[in-house]
């Protein structure tokens, strides 16, 4: 067998791929989605809190947010997952009696995601024109209400593409929770592919898992680009028959 053929068989063995399909579909895919979605949602909420702490006028809150972010973005994900898994595992077991690794895995992924998402939100919020806060305060809204009603909602909209990118990372990072220990039915896409590869000595199942990832990530990437373009170009303006000025292209309009 020549090297090229050998490579083809190692990576593109159809039978091996088809054999792993059922597990990928019924075990890996739902678990990957569950992990990414759950930690995406929790990470977004926590990230929002972090962002608000990060731009707060209270120096202590800003510092806490800063240190949290530095640590959870700076450490390799595996280290965090192990720390959470081993550190909180017994506590969780004591309280709930559950030995499922999912709560801990989701917690660890959420902590990591929140550090990134916090930075995304913070930069989005800081990119909102100062005039918006000023206008809101001039109406008589307090700083807090102004942030909540006017600034934050706009900042969040702007960072949607970055958020979706973060979610794509989560999909791929979710495979790391196997460090906490998974029973067979708890494995996500990568692990299912990896185990099948181990049993057959053929890497094709990994490629099959890779294709599943692509099916999740590529549509999301295009969603990002779509949102991004739409945010950049702006909502299509309707011509205004009663007012010629409404036909100014967005790029020529007044932007602070």
């Amino acid at each position, binding site marked *: *067998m020549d*090297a090229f053929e*050998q*490579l083809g068989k*190692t990576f593109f063995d159809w039978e091996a791929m088809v054999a792993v399909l059922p*597990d990928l579909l019924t*075990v890996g895919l739902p678990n990957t989605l569950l992990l990414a979605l759950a930690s995406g949602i929790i990470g977004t909420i926590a990230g929002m809190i972090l962002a608000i702490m990060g731009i707060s006028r209270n120096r202590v809150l800003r510092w806490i947010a800063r240190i949290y972010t530095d640590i959870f973005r700076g450490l390799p994900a595996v280290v965090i997952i*192990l720390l959470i*898994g*081993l550190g909180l*595992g*017994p506590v969780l*077991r004591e309280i709930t009696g559950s*030995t499922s*690794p999912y709560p801990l895995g989701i917690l660890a992924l959420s902590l990591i995601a929140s550090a990134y998402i916090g930075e995304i939100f913070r930069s989005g919020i800081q990119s909102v024109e100062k005039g918006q806060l000023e206008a809101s305060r001039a109406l008589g809204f307090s700083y807090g209400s102004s942030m909540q009603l006017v600034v934050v909602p706009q900042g969040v909209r702007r960072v949607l593409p970055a958020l979706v990118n973060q979610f794509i990372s989560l999909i791929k990072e979710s495979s790391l929770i*196997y*460090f*906490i*220990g*998974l*029973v*067979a*039915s*708890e*494995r996500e896409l990568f*692990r299912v592919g*990896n*185990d099948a*590869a*181990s*049993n*057959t*000595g*053929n*890497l094709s199942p990994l490629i099959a898992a890779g294709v599943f990832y692509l099916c999740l990530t590529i549509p999301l990437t295009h969603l990002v680009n779509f949102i991004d373009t739409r945010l950049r170009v702006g909502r299509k303006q309707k011509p205004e028959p009663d007012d010629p000025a409404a036909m100014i292209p967005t790029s020529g309009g007044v932007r602070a």
Partner: protein
Amino acid sequence: SSSEPAQPTDALAGSDQESLDKYTTEDTTPIEEIDTDELDLITDGTLRVGTLSDAPPNIFLEDGVFTGYDNELLRAVGDKLGLEVEFASTDFSALLAQVQNKQFDVGSSSISTTEARRENVGFTNGYDFGYMAVVTKDGSSVSGFDSLSESTRIGVVQGTVQDDYVTNTLGLEPVRFPDYNTVFANVKNGQVDAWVAPSQQATGQVKEGDGTTIAETIINTENFTAYAANSDNQPLIDALNAGLDAVIADGTWTELTQEWYPDRELPSDWKPGSKAVDVK
């Protein structure tokens, strides 16, 4: 660890259980005297076992069930003790810490019982020993263990008995891989010259016409393999030792060994379990 590198040709040098294995117990508590309520298990009545899902034939996952020689033997031990056995897979680098921190009751992963590991976690008596093969490409200049040298790129899976053997016994520096499938793929495409593999793994992987050969198989009884348990949980270690002796005494061990390792002979200078038990 600092064990003196032996001559490469003398693979069995130093594999003398009398002097090296000071940890094997003289005997065990009779199995009837084990009170499974005293074992401080995570869930009463269930052994939660941390294992790997990707290292056949010792430990792997097949049709959604954890199996392999080590795990089947552990199931038999659990039966003797009247305990359910529940497996979950993890990464080897985390496994021992997870056992010591009671995320798992037992670690089952053909763990080689080195001094360094004993400082951090407890072990049962041995249930297996190193039985390994050199896998090469057809026509390779490597013809066996004695032709391994400084200039050979030797692939091993990181943290396994084979890694320990090549590194500490042969005194050579292996190329470490995360799992068996990557190392085997690297043998096939020539990135490494030889793979020091678990013998059965080698037999399972090497197939007619795939361009690879098993050049030699040898036995190494240094640093036998054992199950890991929390070092402070002596009752659990005692119970596992008792169970192990029981499955050795009633022939289950021999049966399983023959089932999983059909061509392997038990070395004359090594036996599993406590010093008191006779292999049936």
